[in-house]
């Protein structure tokens, strides 16, 4: 089976190479995206068949890569799950791009890299030795970097790409260090060797921290997330969807692979750090998102938030597994995996929707949109589905995985460790806060972008996107719903994965009546998305029918009431910034040092009043800018050495010589 996935990945890469030749021709983008969609879909099917057939892991060793190790590839349950995530997501995004890609001004800056990027992500997932893994990982970064640079003429894009690749390189360095520790001085770089060695707890802890830096920076955990909200929006929308929806998952795959599979026991004794990082990431991500008015940037920050939620699940799984609470560990792990799947679906959907909106309005600034629900009926529906799903509201899929995470948190009082027991409720509270803030944020997004009145002429005349794009988004929306109302099937399909990672799986769900999910025991908790949906649909229809039948069905269109004020300029509507104002005041003053400056003209003056908000990004301004400044300062100091006279250079050599001679003299 692994050879099929590998073949698919390599074919995708060749497609990338081929499109260098094709790129000039008309219709090239259709062919490339169509072929990418087909290949990704096939690979996803292979992964699905593998996962459902419970086949034993399939391996392959090629005589390339690190010479004395070779390139190992392996398809096991975990890899298969991520192959599905990558393959399915890419297939849908590629279908979207068949239509969307037409608008690309310079297709040759996207086409060669796009299929190769998918291929590289697949390679990361099936790699089974450190070198192949890192090679694919970094190629993945590199290709996405090239994709980010598709619109390289904008200064913001260039600086985003710069930050992105530097952070990616930093992450890779951390990964190399981690694998160096795992391989040991003998250089056992294949994963089988790493699995077989029992590491010491200290080493395990260092590796976990390194993985948090390495994989976490790619996934976007706070405070290493800074590149993400810059790079994801800078790329063309289908690439943003790919990076946010899928690539971050591949990063999490890296974390899971190392901490649960390769390290095993040695990694699990300190889940506090993972939990804390996850909780902070979730809350900070959504707070950042609330402060944005660039649609894609906002969505990118929501990726940060969801990564935090996933890490909370992973941290819980580590904690439970360490204390041998196997059922709980399985629950937490499934919650994390389910959320990975869900996020990949709805975040892709939202980014694709954002792409459609950007295409229709020519802007990413939410303050220039509004009223698109009238102009883009289908997009507005699917985007609404995505918004509900990401806000973790029933009956869509986002709710199910968060619900599972909450259930896992509620099992934590049985943990024997005090620190964890005190930490977990706090984490639960943060998770709830993040979820509530996310809902607020998506009310803002949907309300400002799709509802209300158009704020610009482009928004007023926006056109619905093409059929390919709509079809792709519709598929994703349907998946959001299906995963929300039939979660049992997903959970059962995930059980081999959780078994492989935490040696236990959740009880079989699909045998429960009415497809209810009961993670631990029926007396403890259960949820049935299907019934909830049916109840809501039923009672809403009943109420509507009853009222229309027995009361009135009259309807008259009239100007908005608005307490008698006359609606005029669309600017009087609540915009992105004004919507966020209450939350900005509540949370922003502490976190972002928000200051609102109001300058009121004197009475009688005709000058406009001015309102300005300043805020500081605590991570970027407080940390990264300072590092940059430090490097600059050092570089300036070092740079003086470029301008010495020959005599001074000789003096340096002479000093070094005398110094070394002195060392020799003073030695022993």
């Amino acid at each position, binding site marked *: 089976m692994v050879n099929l996935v590998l073949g698919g990945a390599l074919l995708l890469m060749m497609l990338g190479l081929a499109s260098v030749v094709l790129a000039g021709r008309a219709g090239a983008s259709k062919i490339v995206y169509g072929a990418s969609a087909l290949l990704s879909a096939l690979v996803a099917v292979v992964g699905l068949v593998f996962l459902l057939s419970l086949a034993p892991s399939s391996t392959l060793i090629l005589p*390339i890569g690190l010479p004395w190790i070779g390139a190992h590839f392996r398809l096991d349950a975990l890899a298969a799950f991520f192959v599905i995530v990558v393959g399915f997501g890419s297939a849908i995004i590629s279908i979207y791009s068949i239509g969307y890609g037409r608008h690309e001004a310079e297709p040759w800056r996207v086409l060669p890299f796009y299929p190769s990027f998918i291929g590289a992500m697949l390679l990361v997932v099936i790699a089974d030795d450190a*070198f192949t893994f*890192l090679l694919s990982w970094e190629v993945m970064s590199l290709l996405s970097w090239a994709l980010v640079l598709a619109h390289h003429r904008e*200064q913001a894009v260039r600086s985003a790409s710069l930050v992105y690749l530097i952070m990616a390189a930093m992450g890779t360095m951390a990964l*190399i*260090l981690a694998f160096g520790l795992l391989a040991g001085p003998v250089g056992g770089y294949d994963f089988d060797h790493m699995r077989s060695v029992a590491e010491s707890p200290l080493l395990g802890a260092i590796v976990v921290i390194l993985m948090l830096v390495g994989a976490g920076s790619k996934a976007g955990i706070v405070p290493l997330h800074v590149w993400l909200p810059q790079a994801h929006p800078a790329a063309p929308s289908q690439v943003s969807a790919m990076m946010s929806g899928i690539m971050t998952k591949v990063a999490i795959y890296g974390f899971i692979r190392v901490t649960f599979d390769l390290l095993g026991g040695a990694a699990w004794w300190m889940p506090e750090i993972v939990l804390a990082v996850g909780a902070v990431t979730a809350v900070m991500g959504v707070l950042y998102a609330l402060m944005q008015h660039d649609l894609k940037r906002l969505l990118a920050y929501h990726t940060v938030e969801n990564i935090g939620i996933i890490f909370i699940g992973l941290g819980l799984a580590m904690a439970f597994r360490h204390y041998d609470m196997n059922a709980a560990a399985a629950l937490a792990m499934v919650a994390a995996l389910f959320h990975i799947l869900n996020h990949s679906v709805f975040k892709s959907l939202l980014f694709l929707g954002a792409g459609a909106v950007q295409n229709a309005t020519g802007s990413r600034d939410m303050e220039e949109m509004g009223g698109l629900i009238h102009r883009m009926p289908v997009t507005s529906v699917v985007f609404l589905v995505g918004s509900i799903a990401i806000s973790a509201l029933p009956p869509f899929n986002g709710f199910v995985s968060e619900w599972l995470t909450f259930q896992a948190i509620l099992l934590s009082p049985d943990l024997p460790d005090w620190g964890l027991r005190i930490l977990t409720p706090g984490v639960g509270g943060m998770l709830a806060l993040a979820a509530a803030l996310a809902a607020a944020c998506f009310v803002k997004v949907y309300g400002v972008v799709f509802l209300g009145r158009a704020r610009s002429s482009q928004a007023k005349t926006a056109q619905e996107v093409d059929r390919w794009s709509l079809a792709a988004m519709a598929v994703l929306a349907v998946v959001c719903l299906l995963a929300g109302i039939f979660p049992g099937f997903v959970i059962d399909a995930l059980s081999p994965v959780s078994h492989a990672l935490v040696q236990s799986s959740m009880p079989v769900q699909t045998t429960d009546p009415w497809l209810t999910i009961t993670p631990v025991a029926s007396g403890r908790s259960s949820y049935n998305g299907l019934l909830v949906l049916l109840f809501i649909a039923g009672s809403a229809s009943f109420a509507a029918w009853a009222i229309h039948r027995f009361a009135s069905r009259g309807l008259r269109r009239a100007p908005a009431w608005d307490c008698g004020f006359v609606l005029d300029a669309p600017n009087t509507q609540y915009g992105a910034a004004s919507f966020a104002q209450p939350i900005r005041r509540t949370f922003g003053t502490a976190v972002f040092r928000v200051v609102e400056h109001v300058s009121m003209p004197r009475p009688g003056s005709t000058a406009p009043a001015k309102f300005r908000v300043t805020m500081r990004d605590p991570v970027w301004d407080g940390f990264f800018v300072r590092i940059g400044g430090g490097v600059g300062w050092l570089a300036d100091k070092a740079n003086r050495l470029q301008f010495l006279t020959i005599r001074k250079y000789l003096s340096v*050599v002479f000093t070094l010589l005398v110094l070394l001679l002195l060392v020799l003299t003073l030695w022993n």
Partner: protein
Amino acid sequence: MSFPFGPVELILGIPAVAAVLLAVLPGYRLTSWLNVGASLASFLAAAALLVVGRPAPSAFFLIDELNIVFVVLNTFVGFTAACFSAAYIAHELETGRLTPVYLRFYHAMYQVMMFGMNLVLVTNNIGLMWVAIELATLSTVLMVGIYRTPEALEAAWKYFILGSVGIALALFGTILVYLAAQPVLGEGAAAMVFTNLLPRAAEFDPMILNLAFVFLILGYGTKVGLAPLHAWLPDAHAEGPTPISAVLSGLLLNVALYAVLRFKMLMTANPETLAPGPLMITMGLVSLIFAALMLYRRRDIKRLFAYSSIEHMGIIVFAFGMGGPLANFAGLLHMVMHSLTKSAIFFSVGHIAQIKGSQKTAEIRGLTHSHPALGWALVVGVLAIAGMPPFGVFMSEFLIISSTFSRAPFLALIFVAGLLLAFGALLMRLTGFAFGEPTGNLQPVKASMAPLYIHMGLVLLAGIYLPGPMVAWFQAVARLLG
């Protein structure tokens, strides 16, 4: 062998004869072809060493696993650089920066330099090695100053003075090695033959060896370009003709490094000496971090990549300083990859600077738009040199870091910090060069892309697949280095 000469003699003889011929023959077309042909012939002779087997070491010549790597690499890059040089120099003649007289001088010096470097590599006598390095240095000094602009002269002067002092220190080190060997091996030339020195090194006076190594690493280290002995290197790279920059970065640094490695072997063979490792590690790290910082403020594209060479020499010296089979393997691999990649970068930089008529970083913008082939080649080259996969440098850096971390975690962290610093600077510049709105001359250009593609192809191949025999060979060398 039906040949009258063995490959070793050919490797030395061809450049020597070619140098004489080139000094007297007129005409640009002929001489540049002759230059390419002679370089190709030397490369073939070196390649023949791989095929026909190695001659037994004599008092003058030694071919072992270590230097055969260097010889093949040296002659290969010498050949591709000659190809590039043919296209490059044609443009220089057109624009009048070089006159035919100087051209003749240039070609002759090119072969003299190749002769010098080949001699360093194949000789078995540490005295002869010193002479050859001096020869290579002097020939490159003359080439650096060939444009006769104030900047070029100044660069050459600086190179000459610093190089001479370095060479003097190296001579003192060489004398000291002889002094250490003389009581054991007896008086005379035998005590300067490397293959005699190595097996008996354990009996030498360890303290003299220590002292000798201090002088040798300072002397030859100047040639390697280790900070703070590097001062000549950036200017020499920036002001000389670009083929020479490519050869300097790709070859001369390696050749000097080879000399350092030979003496390091001698040191490690004597268990009572101070381990050379810590000194090399320190100098390697200092070079790495210093060069990485210097990259940030560069405004001249060739000087930028010159500092990048210093950085990579730091990496290689660090790897060899760490020692052990993995690090040594990685160091060797890195050296080969750096030679190929850096010379490829200089090939593209040469054309770019000719197109734009400037080496100023601020005047080179949006190359992937205006000159896609050159621009993307530069992108690929810089990414490769910055340690991005799927190129060979990534493999060597991967091995160095991962093998170091479990042995010396703090060193590995400093090393990683240095790499990241350098990466940030290079990427920042690269973004400026390759992307954004293009500036300056936007005319398409006729460039000789073949050497570039060959180099990058090899680097790419090595990043993904190293042939088995080559691995075995590298591993043997790694063991040799201890």
